[in-house]
């Protein structure tokens, strides 16, 4: 399989001395949907921030066989779309259009291309006609969709999503899951929503204390109750 992301021996320590990732290696193939699950503070978000060069550290992250470094940051950011947990962080412009257009404008698209990219991205997430709305007056489910549209407008080949279903009620959650299933990109999803993992990802990685505990088929891992319990993902029988 064609590897789109290859992480080799990645370690990261936050400036306050707290270790977040230690010696992590991971390879993701084209078109895969990989779930990264683990307890709070396991390093899931930190891992995602490495995928498009927001954080750098020793070890190497390669995207489409090019190293992620300062020289090709722009290129990497157009390939890897990062969707953050809180849509209020991602939607910072006065109108939906401005937010979805932010990436394409930074990528230097022409005005016509920007408009085309925005309407296509909004169509993907089923939010056509919301261009002039202000994000503050949208529901949380709608804001999550717009947040995804803000990276789709840059036509990325890899989507990295941080807790896409956090804070959503079941109906919005399932409609978001079916939306994500329709997107053809390679997906890396950091979450602790196991229903989402079962519905969307064929492969699962358990991350705990900055290290990969196990990497394998979702059906095997999610049925191993004692493994899940040991890493804070299922009720602990011993307590």
């Amino acid at each position, binding site marked *: 399989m064609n590897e789109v992301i290859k992480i080799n021996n990645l370690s990261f320590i936050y400036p306050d001395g707290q270790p977040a990732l230690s010696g992590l290696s991971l390879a993701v193939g084209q078109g895969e949907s990989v779930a990264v699950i683990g307890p709070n503070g396991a390093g899931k978000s930190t891992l995602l921030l490495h995928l498009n060069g927001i954080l750098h550290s020793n070890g190497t992250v390669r995207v489409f066989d090019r190293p992620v470094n300062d020289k090709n940051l722009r290129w990497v950011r157009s390939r890897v779309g990062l969707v953050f947990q809180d849509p209020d962080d991602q939607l910072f412009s006065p109108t939906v259009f401005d937010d979805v257009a932010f990436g394409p404008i930074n990528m230097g698209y022409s005005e016509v291309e*920007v408009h085309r990219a925005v309407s296509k991205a909004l169509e993907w997430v089923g939010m056509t006609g919301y261009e002039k709305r202000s994000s503050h007056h949208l529901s949380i489910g709608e804001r999550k969709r717009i947040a995804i549209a803000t990276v789709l407008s840059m036509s990325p080949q890899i989507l990295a999503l941080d807790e896409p279903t956090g804070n959503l009620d079941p109906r919005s959650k399932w409609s978001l899951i079916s939306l994500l299933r329709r997107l053809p990109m390679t997906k890396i999803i950091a979450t602790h929503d196991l229903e989402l993992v079962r519905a969307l990802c064929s492969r699962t990685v358990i991350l705990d204390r900055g290290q990969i505990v196990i990497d394998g088929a979702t059906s095997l891992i999610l049925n191993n109750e004692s493994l899940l319990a040991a890493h804070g993902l299922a009720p602990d029988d011993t307590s």
Partner: protein
Amino acid sequence: MKHGFLDQYSDRDSFIHRLDPRTKFIISFLFILVVALTPPDSWLVYTLYAALMAGLLLAGRLPAGYVLKRSLIIMPFVLLIALFIPFFKEGEVAGSYNMWLWQVTVTYSGLQVLVNIVIKSWLSILSLIWLTSTTKLPHLLRGLEQMRLPRVMVMILSFMYRYLFIVVDEAMRMKQARDSRNFGGGRRWQVNTIGNMIGTLFIRSYERGERVYVAMAARGFDGHIRTLNHLSFRVADAYFGIGGILVLSLISLFTFLF
């Protein structure tokens, strides 16, 4: 939680609403300029300016009650600064009072300055209310940007517009959380909690700022602010702009005639 918009009524439709934000900005700026330059005793000129502003507000289909209420907001600031002028300005004495140890005198010219300051600031704030209530803030920002206001400032203003409500929401949630655990307590203790809340709010906003920056960087932001420009003047803008400038200069000419 829902709040009133900063730019309430800006989504109504009227001839004024459809004008280019730049036209409205220039007219309200000129209005403030000529009002500020009006000599103190030209009451007729003030009346004409007030009539003109009333006409503009009516044309913008803004409710009078709302406009009056909002215009009162600046009065405390103006009064705080201007209230003492009648006591200090020298001139013909209008009244003299004994207050404890001091003899306090009020002069006519001082009173005139006070009234002038109040009228001028009130007319100016009306013009700003007219501008912001008939223009959507995103449009206004785009207009300012095309008028060469530095993009960093436009961006700061747009962040303010976007995050003001979120910070208010956060503050209200904290207040609810506090009230649900608050069973009286001394005044001193309550003031302490408010201080802590303000501190927490500041730290949360600061951290949010960092997360927003990361979200911007993830979409290719490299410190250069790039935007698309959409606005274009229409014929109505030319008529309104030229008409407005003519009327304003006509009224300011009255100053010399009377």
